Every structure is written in C-alpha cells, then in structure tokens.
C-alpha cells in the first residue's frame, strides 16, 4: 500500500513539500535548518520554478543542502557562494538562483564575495542562517557571536578587547544601492515561520523580476553549539539574539523599481 492510498482523499491538512526528499537530514534535533529547507522547497514549488532553479550550497552545516532539496545544486568553497551565484545568474538570466549560507561562511570568510555580489545588484537571493556560531566544526566563535557568549574559541565569553564586536551584515547590506530587499526573520514560532516564508517568496520574486539582490537573514538556534535544549535555545534566542539582531524588513525597494 502506498502512502497516497493510506491517506484518504481530503484528509491531508499538512504535508512535506515534494521537493524535500526522504533523505534523513544530518541536522541536530532542534536546528533551524530543517524548517528553512522546508520553506525554500515550498516557495520554489509554489512559484513553479522546480525546473529552473540553480542553488548554491555553502561550507558549514548546510554543506549537504543538496542532498535534501531536489533542485540543481553547486557546492561552493567556503564563503564563495555569491561569486558562483553571480556568474550563474548572469549566464542563465531566466533561472532562479540563490545561495544558502551560514554566518561563518557569509559574514566571515565570504564577506567580500557577499558585499560585492549584493552591491553589483546581482539578481539573486542570499538566504543567511545566523546562529552566531560555527556549528559544523564544533561550536567555535563566529563573526556574529554575541558579546559575552561562550564558544569553543572564546570559552570565557566574547570580549571586545580580545575579539571585537559582532558583525551586522544585514544592516550593512541594507545600505548598499545594489540591494532591493533586505530582511531579518526567524523560524521559532508558527507565526515567524509564516513571515519567513513570505520573505523568501518576496526575495525570490524580486530576483526573477530583475530588481536587484536580496538578503534574507534567518536568526537561528544552534542548540548543540549553544549547549542548550531546543526549547531553551529558542528562549535564549528570543531574549538575547533578537535584542541585538532586530527582526523585520530593513529595506524593500521592490515596489519602487
């Protein structure tokens, strides 16, 4: 008996998007990546862009994004995804091209590629997962690590005198003439997930309308790296991350262009 036969007609109230395949995800329980993967898959499907999407995965926890979402993927070197996306979009202008990057990849080693791709007004979208830590390598300090936050490479807490300040790349992106839509979202509640999905959809649509570059930051948890239960991590994020990384649209010039 197939899954379709088991589920009676009209009984489905919720299902996984078809683009999200059955490969078991390697993400830790409680991680935000799974939710964002689902949203990205849903939006591509709803836009009817399955056969026209070229995605670029980063180095970091989402390196294997290509195993889970059934579109064409290029796996970039650490931080270089926006360079791959720039060339790909220019060579295939009618394709939906986006990168999916974490804070270490985007805000640290790939700062140059990120800022310049955004400011060249490349018609791409950058999905930016900011969990303030290097997850894949085992919880080291990221450029977005909050002051006082403890990681494997700032075990006594991030200090300005030793490590400088956390970087707000999204605020920088909003000042760039090349960007069209810059927003900061989260996926910790149903309402937040719905808002994040709308943001991703808007960004993808603007990129297809040739309105310039788009950055969707998702403030996320890394309960493994933060050494908290998923529930506690969500709470900690609301109290600490949102106080520094304010949620909401920072820029939206899509209607003017």
């Amino acid at each position, binding site marked *: 008996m197939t899954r379709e036969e088991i589920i009676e007609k009209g009984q489905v109230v919720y299902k996984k998007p078809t683009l999200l395949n059955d490969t078991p995800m390697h993400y830790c329980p409680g991680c935000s990546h799974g939710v964002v993967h689902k949203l990205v898959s849903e939006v591509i499907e709803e836009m009817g862009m*399955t*056969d*026209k*999407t*070229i995605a*670029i995965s980063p180095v970091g926890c989402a*390196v294997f994004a*290509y195993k889970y979402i*059934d*579109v*064409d*993927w*290029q*796996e*970039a*070197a650490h931080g*270089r995804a926006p*360079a*791959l*996306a*720039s*060339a*790909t979009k*220019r*060579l*295939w202008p009618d*394709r939906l091209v986006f990168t999916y990057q974490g804070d270490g990849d985007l805000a640290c080693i790939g700062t*140059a*590629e990120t800022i*310049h791709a955004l400011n060249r007004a490349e018609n791409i979208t950058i999905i930016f997962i900011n969990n303030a830590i290097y997850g894949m390598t085992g919880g080291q300090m990221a450029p977005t690590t909050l002051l006082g936050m403890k990681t494997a490479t700032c075990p006594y807490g991030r200090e300005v005198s030793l490590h400088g300040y956390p970087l707000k790349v999204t605020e920088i992106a909003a000042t760039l003439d090349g960007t069209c839509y810059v927003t900061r979202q989260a996926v910790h509640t149903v309402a937040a997930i719905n808002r994040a999905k709308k943001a991703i959809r808007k960004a993808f649509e603007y990129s297809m309308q040739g309105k310039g570059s788009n950055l969707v930051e998702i403030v996320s948890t890394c309960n493994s790296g933060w050494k908290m239960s998923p529930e506690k991590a969500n709470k900690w994020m609301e109290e600490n991350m949102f106080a520094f990384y304010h949620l909401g649209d920072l820029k939206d010039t899509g209607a003017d262009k």
Partner: protein
Amino acid sequence: MKGNEAIAHAAIRCGCDGYFGYPITPQSEVLETLAAEKPWETTGMVVLQAESEVSSINMVYGGASTGKRVMTSSSSPGVSLMQEGISYMAGAELPALIVDVMRGGPGLGTIQPSQSDYFQACKGGGHGDYHLIVLAPASVQEMADFVDLAFTLAFRYRNPAMILADGAIGQMMEKVVLPPFKPRRTEEEIIKECPWATTGRVGGRKPNIITSLELRSEEMEIINNRIQAKYREIEDKEVRFEEYLLDDAEYAIVAFGSAARIAKKSIEIARSQGIKVGLLRPITLWPFPTREVRKLAGKVKGILSLEINAGQMVEDIRLAVEGKVPVRHFGRLGGIIPDPDEVVDALKRLF
C-alpha cells in the same frame, strides 16, 4: 596585436560564454580589450570584473558548473589566489580556461616576465592530487589559437585547462590571424552536450549536483582513481610538442614559451660555431612530453633545460632521462630574459 589582446579576441570568436577577471599587470589588456569590444552586445558573452581573483575563479567555478564556456585570466600573484577555486574545479571535474601570464616572484615580485610558476601550473598548485591541462604558447598566434584548443580539451576531459604564458608573450606585438567566428552554443545544445551541468531540472530530470565533497573514504578513493585514470588517458593522448633541428643534433635544448624563442636564436648562433644543437619545445607542459625527452636522451650527449626561472621543468626532464645523459639548467631570474649569447656560453660551459 599584443598577446593579451589576442586572448580576448580569440575568446569572443570561439564561442566563449563568459569572462570573469581582475586587473593585474602584465595581463590587464585581456579584460580591457573585452570591455572595449563589448561582446555582450554581439555574441552575448558575459564580461565581469570581479572584486578579487578569489571571486573571479569562483565565478568561473559557478559558470563552468552550468556547462558554459567560461574563463579567467591573471598573472602569478593573482593565480596564487585562485588555487582554491582551481582545486575545487579539478575535484568537481569542471571544464574551464585559466590564463596565467606569468611575472617574476616570489611574493609581489616583479611585473617583468618569468616562467617561475611552472611547478604551480603543472604539479597541482592547489591542494589535492590533481592536474590541469597546461598549454604553453610561444607566439601571439598561439595565444589566439590555444584559447579554442584549451576549451576543447577542457570539455573533452571535464578538466580545467590553463594557458601558461609569460609577460613577454602577453605584451609583445606580432601579426596574428584570428580564428574564424564560431557561434556560442545555444542553451539547448549545452543541455545536450553537458547532461551533468546545473542548468535547472529541464524536462523534470533528476537533480544535478556539482561538488568535490565526499566524506566516505571508500567512495572518495573511487572518485580519485577515476580522476587519475582520466589523467593517464590525457598523458597518453594529448601530448603536444615541436621539434627543431634535432635530426643531426648532438645536444638538445628543451624550452617552452618565450624561452623557446630565445633557444632558436641561440641554436642559430651555436650552429654557426659548429655546435650541433636542436630544440624540443613542449607545447603541453602537462601532459609533459616524457616519451619524446626520453627518446632524445638516446640520441644526444646532453640536454639543457632553458627556463626563465631557477630550474623547474628540468626536474621533469631528469625524470624522463633517468640519468642516461647529463641534464643541466640555465635560466635568469628577477624578470630578466636570457640573452641568446649567454645561452650559447652556458651550453659550452655546462657540457
């Protein structure tokens, strides 16, 4: 025209889809010529000045992942920055063209010509077991001709190819017959020719993934072995070289690129003095003409490796010769091009 300009014109004419580069002396004319020619208005070729060589090579990585004919050019310090992307492309088995118009090093070095990046070009350069297909032009004509050849080889083997020139070849002006116009492939042709490319899941096919990553050691060894088998096939089929006055030669010079031009003049001078010397010019530096050098070792009394560096290709010559005859090196450093007379003196002194 200049060698660098010939590269640009040949790229437009051979159906190149995209050029991504960053200015650096002595090769900036490639990007300048492309910008002046505006091929995006004629052939539809994309030309983009990147924010760094790191970015330009990764643009090439992205473009090559979609099956397009894409290229970059740079000079030694810039090519050092590109090594990461080149290694990824070799690992992901992507066809692309990298032009290196060498200048002297190490470090910022000099802007004068040099051949001191032979090792970097031929022995991997970046991390991991890999090779580029390396073509060494010795004239402006070959700068033009090797663009299409490099793309052809790159796509035949799904491997990045490099044109390894030097500042002299890049900057010198010579008459050149440009190749005839070849149209860029249509998207349909690319999708058919490159079923592996990330073009979007056209026709609902399975997703294509371009990656150099495989965490399972057993799988990674299989991939490595497949790539190595490809390299053996390239070594078997794609060696290119030129022979000059070797029939009666008692001594041989092995030299590539601008050093080979100097060698020809030196041979003329030496022969006028009764020294029978000829030239073997590797055109492909990788694959290296190992068999041809080995054959040479059975015929001549000694081999001089003439390079504008401190002695790099000489190691490959010695590996080929296996001690049968003396192999010596002569070169100048710091961006100085050897004088034909001092090469003749070196021949007399070293043998």
